[in-house]
């Protein structure tokens, strides 16, 4: 839903809400999926991002987002220096994801201590973003909520347990989606919540034997 402050904002570092602010938010969301500043990031840009990104500071904004800078942080101008100081290396490539892909799409491959996550998302206008793929699973994340994404072995009671832990920690759920690769295989759970998901809740969920990995994505709007 469009809020008044999507119209009277966002407050942002220019020059483009889609190519700069949205690009930064995509970087932030990808970083949140990894849970750390990446040691190395490979970012592929598609369509308009690839064609006009440089003049809009798109690459700089993405790198800034990957080290945790917000779209209104003046340090975005020096994002490369900030990232270098944080010990991150990165590479950009152009990619053609086909005519169906949103023109402002980026694909991330982020590494930290042997772990690799992949994130695909698009800047859909006015600084708003949508993450559409996470580690190969289709998702739909906007960053408008506190989000929990977890990969679990598909067995009875997993949803009940996760929602139970969250409600016991005072977290009200806004949306929930479950996708599985097959019966009794892996299931990806995406939960968007009104309240922040605490460390305690996250640890409690991660402690379950059937949870392969769980990631908290802070609200980025």
């Amino acid at each position, binding site marked *: 839903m469009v809020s008044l402050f999507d119209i009277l*904002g966002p407050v942002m570092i220019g020059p483009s809400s889609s190519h700069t*602010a949205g690009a930064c938010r995509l970087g932030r969301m990808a970083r949140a999926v990894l849970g750390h500043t990446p040691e190395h990031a490979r970012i592929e840009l598609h369509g308009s991002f690839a064609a006009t990104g440089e003049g809009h500071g798109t*690459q*700089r904004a993405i790198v800034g987002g990957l080290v945790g800078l917000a779209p209104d942080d003046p340090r975005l101008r020096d994002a490369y220096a900030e990232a270098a100081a944080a010990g991150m290396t990165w590479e950009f490539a152009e990619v053609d994801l086909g005519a169906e892909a949103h023109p402002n799409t980026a694909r991330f491959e982020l590494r930290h201590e042997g772990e690799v996550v992949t994130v695909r998302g698009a800047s859909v206008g006015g*600084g708003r973003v949508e993450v559409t793929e996470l580690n190969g699973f289709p998702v739909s994340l906007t960053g408008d909520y506190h989000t929990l994404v977890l990969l679990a072995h598909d067995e009875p009671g997993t949803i009940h347990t996760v929602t139970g832990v969250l409600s016991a920690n005072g977290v009200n759920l806004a949306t929930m989606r479950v996708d599985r690769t097959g019966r009794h295989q892996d299931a990806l759970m995406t939960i968007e919540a009104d309240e922040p998901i605490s460390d305690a809740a996250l640890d409690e969920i991660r402690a379950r034997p059937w949870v392969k990995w769980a990631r908290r994505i802070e609200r980025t709007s």
Partner: protein
Amino acid sequence: MHSSIESLIRDAEASGLTLPRVVAAAEEAESGRSEAEIRNRIRNTLRVMREAIVEGLEGKVHSPSGLTGGRARRLQENGPRLLGGRVTETLARAIATLEVNAAMGLIVAAPTAGAAGVLPAILFSVAEALDLDEERLVDGMLVAGGVGGVIAQRASLAGAQGGCQAETGSAAAMGAAAVTWLAGGSGEQVATSVALCLQGMLGLICDPIGGLVEVPCIYRNASAAMQAIAAAEMALAGLDFPVTADEVIDVMGEVGRRMPVAYRETAQGGLAATESARRLVQIRPTKRPRGASA
């Protein structure tokens, strides 16, 4: 957010609330934020708008491409020649914000970064002319936001979807509504100002040189600010327009949908495709990112 100007005006009449309060109440209901929080956040956006204008007028910001920077200051230093200081100041303020935007400065994308110069230029100039305090400016921003919300739902605010009419045109319509309200206009006059403003922006294409939010954007923000003032003056004087604001907004949406893709922020047509533009972009290639590991 309201989905028509008509319902916005009707809600104000039915509830006895002012137009700004109707917009704030709708936001309150949807977001769960209190009216005080909403007004506070708008005060913050006004502060960022002011700072951007000051920074731009200093004339020291320059975009990486070199296409913009220093124009707002040059205008202020060399004008006014024709209609007095207020007009020149308003134009310079619109350009100043867009120059700060192009230089990766902090701005308020109201409603978009490419049209960020229009609303602050009109609001601050009218506030000076009418001696309005900050709270009245917050009211003006709420009216502008209500109108922008209607346009976002019925048409579009994005140049890539609807051309420049959707960006600077929408910003101007929002600004026209705001200052018509601030000058004491009725709900009907606010609606008329939106119609009068947007009808004059219909068909404006988005054809930025080099695909950058710079030229003609800085100049279109300036002229859109004038369009807004013209519409508000006419509406306040009681001039009418036979097509309703909502209908004009719908037409803007339709024109945008039927606009060739070359004129929708792709830099493939219009001014961007001229020989002069191509020469400029060749001479001033944008910098490749430095420090990248590959």
